[in-house]
């Protein structure tokens, strides 16, 4: 997800109160391994599932590999980065 997100960023994620929209960064459960949480960008929402893609297609494992993620497994929306200090800012 570079450059939007980098390893070690501290992110505030808000529980989903409405369906995610295209372009937002969401926290999803990896359908292949539910204890694995991932942050990916929404590319499409249809039929109760969300297609998520990494920002770096050639290095990302995303819906191209594991398919659309059911909305039940979309846990929240990334709102804000509060660390590191130099990169504090909104994510939407």
């Amino acid at each position, binding site marked *: *997800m*570079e*450059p939007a*997100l*980098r*390893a*070690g*960023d*501290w*992110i505030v*994620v808000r529980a989903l109160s409405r369906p995610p929209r295209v372009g937002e960064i969401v*926290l999803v459960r990896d359908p292949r391994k539910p204890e*694995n*949480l*991932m*942050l*990916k960008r929404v590319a499409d929402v249809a039929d109760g599932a969300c297609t998520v893609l*990494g920002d*770096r297609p050639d*290095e*990302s*494992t*995303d819906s191209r*590999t594991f398919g659309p993620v059911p909305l039940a497994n979309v846990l929240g929306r990334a709102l804000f980065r*509060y*660390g590191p200090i130099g990169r504090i800012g909104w994510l939407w």
Partner: protein
Amino acid sequence: MLLTRLLKPTITASAHCDLPCGVYDPEQARIEAESCYKIIEKYNASSDEQFKTRAIVIKEERAELAKHHIDVLWSDYFKPEHVQKYPEITELCWKAAKQCSKVKGSLDIAEAKTLLDMIDKIADVWTKAGGPQATRVAKAAAARA
């Protein structure tokens, strides 16, 4: 410190796939290159033919590993924005990888030294590009000292 502990997130999410691991450090190549250097030293100091034969075999392995680690840095760690900012990195990696082949086939310690210097230049760029913070896991204070 307390504040940091309070603010530190408790849940970790990955923003890329579980692989690649994202740990990249020219030190990995350097250690293999140092092995080559020391092996050549030992080779030259020895008169034991069996030892010398083994030394050659092992040096060739190590040189190959050094080349592999440089290739990984080059193709996986350095991104287009790094190349834009530090255009010399492409040639540095390319030449260092070639130098590994030279060291593989040579018993000239000067070639091994050249390789070490080349890897150090790559390490300089890696450091300037924020590599240590971006790719390494912090060591415990005692291990750093």
